[in-house]
């Protein structure tokens, strides 16, 4: 079992370094940009050379690394990190007609920059991996980490995700019809239209096989590719009967994102759960992006640790006082689905 010992995230809300979820920060120009901190821990010269996703990822990781002790490796997940540099390099190619180009953007366009940078900063020769499977990059990284702690009892890893809104991915997703223009979180779930709001952020976790001192544990995580909502519900039923056989989740943390097309998936999962199961939502806070569900896990950890959540997250009030088991269901673009079962330690 994978236990979470520390967690941090930089998001569009006040989540870093202090957490205040009571006041919702609304989108600007239809985008939920991350509220980046001053990054006091990173030398100014280093900071200037970092792209935004690397900066957010390293910024969020740094606070955990101060107290984490020696790590056995770094597991990253991203769909878009490096895309901004990629696009800048494409611009150079076109503008200078494949002439003399500067390689900086090319080198920085590699999506494995975050795990690579952390390993360099901390002289970590351990396991180093970058999962880039779009809307399941984070879940695949989580499954990788779960296998690692099973393979190496006593081991400890940094598991981290980052994605940013770049001109590149914003335009491509907008042309694909995945965004709508909203400037208020009040309309987020009820606009009755397709598309969501783009978001960005970095989430970092220190995970290990040790229960002692942990905040929460992940009993199971499963992924699925399908466009069939009935199949998702089917697989969820099997997932719960296998991994939570004699109990029910107290809470569904839902990745609902305001896109009408995707609602049947989320409603199908809600209807499978018995009455009294609470339903909370978080995408009005984070916006939608491929690794947004890592922020979902961050919310899950926060809720289990503090046993509280702001009212604006509630879709259905949970029936129990003490929250122990949280089911996180997310889907990306109606194709990439994941179930994560999170329990308080």
């Amino acid at each position, binding site marked *: 079992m994978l236990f979470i010992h520390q967690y941090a995230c930089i998001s569009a809300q006040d989540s870093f370094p202090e957490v205040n979820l009571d006041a919702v920060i609304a989108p600007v120009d239809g985008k939920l940009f991350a509220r980046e901190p001053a990054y006091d821990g990173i030398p100014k010269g280093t900071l200037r050379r970092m792209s935004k996703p690397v900066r957010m990822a390293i910024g969020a990781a740094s606070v955990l690394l101060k107290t984490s002790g020696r790590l056995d490796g*770094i597991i990253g997940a991203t*769909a878009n990190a490096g895309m901004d540099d*990629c*696009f800048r*390099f*494409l*611009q*150079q*190619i*076109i503008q200078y007609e*494949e002439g*003399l*180009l*500067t*390689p900086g953007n*090319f*080198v*920085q*366009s*590699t*999506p*494995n*920059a975050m*795990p*690579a*940078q952390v*390993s*360099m900063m*901390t*002289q*970590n*020769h*351990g*396991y*180093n*991996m*970058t*999962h*880039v*499977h*779009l809307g*399941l*990059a984070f879940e*695949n990284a989580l*499954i*990788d980490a779960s*296998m690692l702690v*099973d*393979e190496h009892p006593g081991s400890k890893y940094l598991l981290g995700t980052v994605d940013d809104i770049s*001109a*590149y991915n914003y*335009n*491509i997703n907008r*042309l*694909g019809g995945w965004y709508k223009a909203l400037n208020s979180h009040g309309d987020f779930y009820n606009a009755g239209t397709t598309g969501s709001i783009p978001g960005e952020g970095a989430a970092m976790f220190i995970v290990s096989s040790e229960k002692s001192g942990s905040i929460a544990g992940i009993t199971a995580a499963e*992924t*699925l*590719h*399908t466009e069939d909502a009935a199949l998702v519900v089917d697989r969820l039923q099997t997932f719960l009967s296998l991994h939570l056989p004699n109990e029910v989740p107290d809470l569904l943390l839902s990745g609902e994102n305001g896109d009408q097309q995707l609602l049947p998936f989320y409603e199908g999962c809600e209807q499978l759960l018995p009455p009294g199961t609470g339903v909370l939502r978080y995408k009005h806070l984070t916006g939608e992006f491929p690794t947004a569900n890592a922020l979902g896990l961050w919310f899950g950890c926060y809720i289990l640790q503090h046993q509280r959540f702001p009212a604006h997250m509630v879709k259905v009030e949970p029936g129990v006082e003490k929250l122990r088991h949280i089911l996180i269901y997310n889907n990306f673009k109606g*194709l990439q689905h994941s179930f994560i079962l999170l329990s308080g330690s």
Partner: protein
Amino acid sequence: MSRIFVTGMGVISALGNSVSENREALKAGKCGITPMELIDSRFAGKLPCGEIKLSTPELARSLNAAQPGLTRTALLALHAFNQAVASAGLSPETLSYPSTVFINGTTVGGMCLTDELYHDAEAKENGSEYLAAYDYASIALYLQQKFSLSGLVNTVNTACSSSANAIMLGARLLQSGRAKRAIVGGVDCLAKFTINGFNALHILSSDICQPFDEARKGLNLGEGAAFLVLEKEEDSIDKEKLAELTGFFNTNDAYHPSSLSENGEGPFLAMQEALASANLRPADIDFINAHGTATENNDAVESKAMLRLFDSPPKFASTKSNIGHTLGAAGAIEAVFSILNLQHQELYPSLNCENGIESTGLMPVVEYTQQPLRHIMSNSFGFGGNCSSLIFSKV
């Protein structure tokens, strides 16, 4: 821990469109690196590349892949995937089981479409047919949908070690009980993006590359795809086994974003720990399919790491002298070549090395030879300090 066997494989490279074509070309010491023809680029007609001389429409026709929005990367992947699955005898039904997992390693993904991508990322309206194709995941998602894969599907990008890491991940998914069969490997194709990137870094050679030669001047890019089918011993009792995957390890050099440390700590650790995971001693390794990119940095550092680990380094070669550096596909293609070495108990010549690196005194294998081979190591190192070594053993 269960033993992991390779029960199928498929490959396409500048040497040929099938496993047997690749083997014949390797035996003959053929070099598939020729002036690039198929990309509309100022380097066309000049830059030596390991190019597959089938245009993208020709590839699509040969594969009956007619849907819009397919990239060259996706087509090369489909070609090698089809072969691997056929060679392992996996039925369409078996492919669709939740116990069948698929992991693709790629660094270019759909970015081979440099000009289309630029247009779409700048555009205010009228997106192209490729909007969903630019992502790294687009290839695995295409194959997932085409073959109704319902098990775990993943894409990894650790630069030039991507597909070696895909192979490792697949083996670990099998050992953890999360899968019964894993289709693993990678794909990359030539692209304006990578050609200009490596050119800007001044590590592209304008001549045909010379891995491990004192006078080496840099790498040639290549393209291709390869996939292996991995199964556990207990799930492959009645099946033909091509090789056993006995060891693997992934580490980070923790030194520099685009070059290896002088002492080769990352390569050294990857090789050392892969041996440990296989319960083998250095002397057990009969041959190394080296990363051998023919850059000044890589070949010197990889040689140094081999000298550190082995009292007397085993025979080694770089098949990048045949097909160029296929980036995210390299680890998987070189795994196929290593398995061919084992299956046929033969070594293929490393090309274009006349004088070994002076400071190391090491020379790669330069002639075709037949000899007993039990364990072969395959190295892959990538930007960001990613270093991975795999060990395949004779069955």
